[in-house]
């Protein structure tokens, strides 16, 4: 699945998007955050405070317990500051 990162999540990880293939046990957004956090220091730094990370599946906001099955594009980012 495609994963996108924005703002300081993007900066800390050092890339704007990538394709990942998490193992079968990774079922929800929070599972995916936990798994990504183990993919290296940059990921650990980006996700060090999982509670502040917001997520979207296919362009819609989702909660941490949302299942990721069937997602085409998952995005992680800090709280929004537009407007």
């Amino acid at each position, binding site marked *: 699945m495609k994963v996108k990162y924005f703002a300081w999540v993007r900066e800390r990880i050092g890339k704007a998007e990538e394709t990942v293939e998490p193992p079968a046990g990774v079922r929800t957004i929070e599972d995916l955050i936990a798994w990504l956090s183990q993919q290296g220091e940059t990921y650990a730094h980006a996700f060090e405070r999982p509670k502040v990370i917001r997520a*979207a599946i296919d*362009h819609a*906001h989702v909660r941490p317990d949302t299942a990721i099955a069937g997602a085409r594009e998952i995005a992680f980012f800090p709280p*929004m*500051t*537009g*407007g």
Partner: protein
Amino acid sequence: MTAIVTIRIQEQDFDTAREIAALSHGRTDIGAVVSFSGICRGNDSGEEIAALTLEHYPGMAEAEIMRRAEQAMARWPLSGLTVIHRHGRITPGQNIVLVVTASSHRQAAFEAAEFLMDYLKTSAPFWKREESAGGESWVEARAHDDEAAARWTRS
């Protein structure tokens, strides 16, 4: 009621007058037009700001604003609604965001514009980065903005 909905995410500036006119020109069913222009300030909590850079999530930004626009249309009797949000580098005094609402009634136009602005602040995928003498930093989300958005779900 036929409603005109316009949502644009763009780098270039917008013309507030043209957007107001587009919603109301030639119509006689509109009694109230409210516009909100959000402008880049040169000072944030005492610190001088040289510029803001707005990053956004293309695709989701449009989709999320459209969802909020549909909520507004369902909640208030609007005849038109325009949201324009800029991205890229913006200097103090320049426009960031525009919301225009048109309705036969003033309360609907005011409330819908406030509703849209509150959600643009808290749920549209945009992130502000500030340039100041001390370097660059991401603007922190404010609890106050979440509270402002939450009031629309209480009633």
